[in-house]
């Protein structure tokens, strides 16, 4: 497909979509969103890109192979479960830290890290399905 219109839109949209995904990921704990949904948004952004250009350029957009993304995601998720154990709580106990950024109180916690792991795994899995199942023979 060689539509200039689609190509231009895709270029513009992809950065907005990626930003939107991050927004969804971070707000997920208190409002609709979360790692799973954010991951799907990224995958559809990549899918859009593949549609506008071709699969090869969509792959190079990822920079790393999805299996690395999946592995890192799983690792992050498992690691996020550990800090709780250091304070003597069971595996996966959430630990929250309060930050003050410019007078605003910001709470960060291991569940967010866990959600990041979920996000990465979903991104990896969905992009594998999108970009590799459709691969031409040979």
């Amino acid at each position, binding site marked *: 497909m060689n539509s200039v219109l689609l190509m231009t839109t895709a270029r513009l949209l992809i950065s907005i979509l990626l930003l939107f995904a991050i927004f969804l990921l971070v707000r997920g704990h*208190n409002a609709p969103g*979360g790692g*799973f949904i954010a991951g799907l948004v990224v995958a559809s952004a990549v899918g859009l890109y593949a549609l506008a250009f071709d699969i090869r350029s969509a792959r*190079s957009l990822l920079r790393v192979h999805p299996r690395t993304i999946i592995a890192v995601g799983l690792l992050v998720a498992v690691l996020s479960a550990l800090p709780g154990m250091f304070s003597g709580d069971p595996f996966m106990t959430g630990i929250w830290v309060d930050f003050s950024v410019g007078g605003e109180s910001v709470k960060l916690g291991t569940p967010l890290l866990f959600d990041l792991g979920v996000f990465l*795994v979903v991104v990896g899995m969905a992009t*594998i399905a*999108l970009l590799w199942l459709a691969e031409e023979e040979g």
Partner: protein
Amino acid sequence: MTESLFIVLAVLIVAVALAPIVVRIAQDRAPYLLSLIPFSLAAFLLLSWRQVDSGEVFGYSFSWVSGLDISATWRLDGLSLMFASLVLGMGGLVLVYARGYMAGMADNGKFYAYLFLFMTAMVGLALSDNVITLFVFWELTSVSSYMLIGHKHGDESSRNSALQALIVTGAGGLALLGGLVMLATAAGTWQISEMAARADAIAASSLAIPALVLVAAGAFAKSAQAPFHFWLPNAMSAPTPVSAYLHSATMVKAGVFLLARLHPTLGELWLWTPLLATVGGITMVAAAWQALRETDLKRMLAYSTVSALGTMVFLIGLGHPSAIKAAVTFLIAHALYKGALFMVAGSIDHEAGTRDLRLLGGLRRAMPLTAAGAGIAAISMAGIPPMFGYVGKETLFAAALDADRFVVILVIAALAAAVLNFAIAAIVSLKPFFGDASETPKPAHEGSPALWTPPLLLALLGVVLGVASPWIGSMIVGAASDTTAGQDIKTELELWPGFGSVLALSVGAIALGAGAYMISSSLARVPLHLGNGGDGIFRRLNSGLQRGSVALTRSVQNGQMSWYISVIVAFGATLILTAMFARDGFRWPADTVAVRPYEVVIAIGVLLAAVMAALTRSRLRAIAALGASGYGIATLFVIYGAPDLAMTQILVETLLVLLLVSVFRFLPTTGENSSPRRRGKDALIAIAGGVAVSVVALAAIAATPASSISDFFGANSKTEAEGSNVVNTILVDFRALDTLGEIAVLAVAAIGVIALLRFTPRRWGDK
């Protein structure tokens, strides 16, 4: 000393990770450095010998699975100290030997890592006091042994032998697990040390005999007792350091160790002696007989190892104090001489290029130090004074004579085994080294010091322990025997038994053994052999299983996507509908909900889109219709206040459409597989699936549980999980373990997709 038991294990675990790095940095010298670890750990454990010998027991415990009352408990007593030091000491020597044997070979980092993994497993097994911990380490020895036997994984017979060893010992492991759980149930404790005190309660339980049979089956499989013995000779395709370490000195003795461990608990059961003494006795004699018939040096040693393991099981089976003493003595003596002989066999193989006894001869000039090691070790194996092997054999005869019943049969069995082992010892030490020098595939010469020092050291240690047996020997055997017997037993070892039946038997064994050696080639032609029935049955079972799986897979998974989906939907629908109507009874929701007009509009839209997707002849239209139907459902989610669900639904629909469009051109043209009959059948299955899902939805509405879990999540989301999006707090906090499981499944599925696409890293790099 108590916490340090755990530190010993921790050091070994660190060594597993460290080994490949050390190999990368220090190259061929790495094994020397690495051998310092087991040597120093062994020395560290032996520091406590005096205290342990005087009956002190060191224990260390921490809670592991508190919900099941399972704790990781370590215990250092006479038996575990003896076994753990044997594992570590032999481990150090094997590392040194591997320096000579494995130098320059591929994958050495991996090899040493697995060797340390095995060492960890064995030491953990020796020190475990909890049956579950013990079982975990037991299985770990099987797994690491699988890796080590199959080290030359390019070689098909290596792979097959490794798999065979894994399956046989793994099956034994399952039996063992069953037996141990029964035992713990009968005893009311998971602690082995507490079980001994409750031996009477266990004996009174109906679980006692099944538990004994299962535990014994596990031990027999591990310690290669007939009829499970066949895996051990086949495992000789492993590199020789592995054979010397796992298959003669340590792992195969795990079964013997376990029986010794449980002797205080189960030894009083009526079945103990008949079962163990019979199986052990038969193995002891039959395997020695079989060994004579082998022409491969390592296989011959393997069969004689099976025979020695039989001897130990036999002795523990007899179970009276002098038999226990003999079992421990024999275990140590055997580890020393057989470890040495395996290393010698490996050196010959390494330097001369063959280990076929028919091709070897006259090597004593080319390999004098190897020959010396072989000679000294063989004298010990043959049971000639003043070696430790002689003391072992002497105690074996004494034990047979001390038995309550069937003394004549027991003595004859012990004598037969001793005679045959004398002949084997003579063959393996004389045949390769004396006689005319023969042409070998490689011109033989003495190997590097790393190849001949360890066997020579082991052989000389046999001399030292033999000569000093009244002092050092007694001390080493004493503590372990006391633990095994469960009481203080007289464990004085003597080199000179005094004139009597024991001496007569020893002399007789030597004389008859010399005779058997003279006629060994004729003996080998006697058409009576142990046979490899087990091996044949194993292979037939294995190939039958494979053929069966292939046939089943072909019939169920024919490669047609439509067939898979039909099966899944039809099966799921049948299951759901049966459960709903046949078991619990289906109820319509009692109260009806008022439906708003625009909901009806959306629902009609969803239905129309679905019908269109089913009826249209154009695939593109079907995809679009499916998407429309999905978006409609997502809208309903929004109306009913489930924004997360709606977002997910919309995204999944989008991705599905994208995916379908991108694989579009690979799909067969519509109508290709579409006869009216086929369409009818598909419609039926699809309707059944739809009905099933609807029924579940209706039933879910009808069922109004007393208290809803959603109330709990709603009330606690903010306070407990610091978030006000309940869906998300459930996913990442309340039920995060489930999510972790799910993303792990996703990752595994991704691996499957990658494998299916046969996607290689190289193609990723291509631009």
